[in-house]
């Protein structure tokens, strides 16, 4: 196998991604179908929240991914800036729209859940607010990719924006915490907590989380492949014009 940097070669990446993609897609479909059906139909209603508790199977995985996708973009941006592997920059570009959709899913399912439980669609709670800010960061990042023609310049600028944005996102998270007290509960899935979600609910939840992760991997592989092929087509067309 050799080192992980072999996959910086677009041909090698495309080849491997193409081989892995069907399996990841099947895995994502299977875990999502099992997790969601189990979650929606074969778990009991919560004694206080009734059946609304089942929104958790979309809300928690989406929220988890929304943050981790940004983190993945941060890592790939750093790799691009340090080692100049194009695949890395393209993977960050490919991940951003997935991340923004995850953020929107988390916000919308949260609102739908909040309406019956807290009596309001929206509250300026620290967690909700930081997700809204994260959404704005994603929008700015994607808009910057779209605005610049030269692909290398775009990759450089967005990478720096991603890094600076990460620092400010963390700062905002703490600023928002300081600014208002929350309605939202704390972490529900940590290892040593009394307030964790009960086991009946958590097993299908873990399956759903695995499903979202696999789905994300599948989408990023697919989109990165598309970006690579798009760039190759552009290069071919340019060569055609010259020759």
């Amino acid at each position, binding site marked *: 196998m050799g080192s992980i940097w072999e996959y910086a070669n677009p041909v090698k990446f495309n080849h491997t991604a193409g081989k892995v993609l069907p399996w990841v897609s099947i895995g994502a479909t299977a875990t999502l179908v099992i997790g969601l059906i189990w979650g929606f139909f074969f778990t009991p209603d919560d004694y206080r929240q009734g059946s609304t508790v089942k929104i958790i199977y979309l809300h928690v995985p989406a929220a988890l991914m929304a943050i981790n996708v940004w983190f993945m973009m941060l890592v790939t941006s750093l790799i691009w800036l340090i080692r100049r592997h194009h695949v890395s920059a393209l993977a960050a570009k490919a991940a951003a729209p997935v991340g923004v959709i995850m953020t929107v899913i988390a916000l919308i399912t949260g609102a739908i859940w909040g309406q019956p439980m807290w009596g309001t669609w929206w509250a300026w709670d620290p967690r909700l607010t930081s997700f809204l800010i994260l959404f704005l960061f994603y929008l*700015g990042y994607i*808009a910057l990719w779209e*605005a610049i023609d030269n692909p290398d310049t775009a990759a450089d600028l967005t990478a720096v924006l991603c890094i*600076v944005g990460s620092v*400010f996102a963390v700062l905002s998270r703490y600023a928002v915490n300081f600014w208002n007290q929350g309605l939202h509960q704390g972490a529900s899935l940590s290892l040593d907590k009394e307030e964790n979600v009960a086991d009946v609910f958590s097993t299908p939840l873990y399956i759903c989380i695995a499903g979202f992760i696999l789905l994300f991997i599948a989408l990023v592989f697919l989109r990165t492949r598309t970006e690579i092929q798009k760039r190759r087509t552009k290069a071919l067309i340019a060569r055609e014009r010259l020759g």
Partner: protein
Amino acid sequence: MIALLIRDLKLAFRAGGGFGLGLAFFLIVTVLVPFGVGPESALLARIAPGILWLGALLACLLSLDRILALDWEDGSLDLLATSPLPLEGVVSVKALAHWLTTGLPLTLAAPFLGLLLSLPTQGYAWLVVSLALGTPALSVIGTFGAALTVGIKRGGLLLSLLVLPLYVPTLIFGAELARRGAEGLATTTPLLMLAGISFGVIALLPFASALVLRVNLR
């Protein structure tokens, strides 16, 4: 470095540039608020610190694309990049010039606009302190945004989209400091946080700004 600063200041003052514009915008925003929410002075006093901070922030935002765009268009930015002064120094001076022509006047004008919004007496000093501490951060962050978007035609809207999320922590602590000052609460925590953000940003962000500017000049 000083020559560059003086040049930038002269340009801002003389060219009918952004100098008066930001102040006028700040005034108009503040005057419009009572039309929007009603003239009741208790309500105005309560929201005054937030409105003044928001107005100052928007006035700052308005003039950001002037920081680098004009120098980019006439090519003087290329000259500056090849000059012995490191690009980090150039962007720092640019940010300083922007602060002197926008942040500082806004800070000085804010107490008078506070009068219009019936800001409580003990709030004036804290309002000025919070703006004096916070607006440099706005200028430096804005310079980073300007450096990111300098190569883009009609990048003004994109600049706002990129810079506004970065302004969130500064706005939160700045407005909180002004609010606590006006209500006579303890001000130490937001004061220290705001100072921390400002100094941290002034120390570190010019490196990022210079980096993206180099990419754009490539």
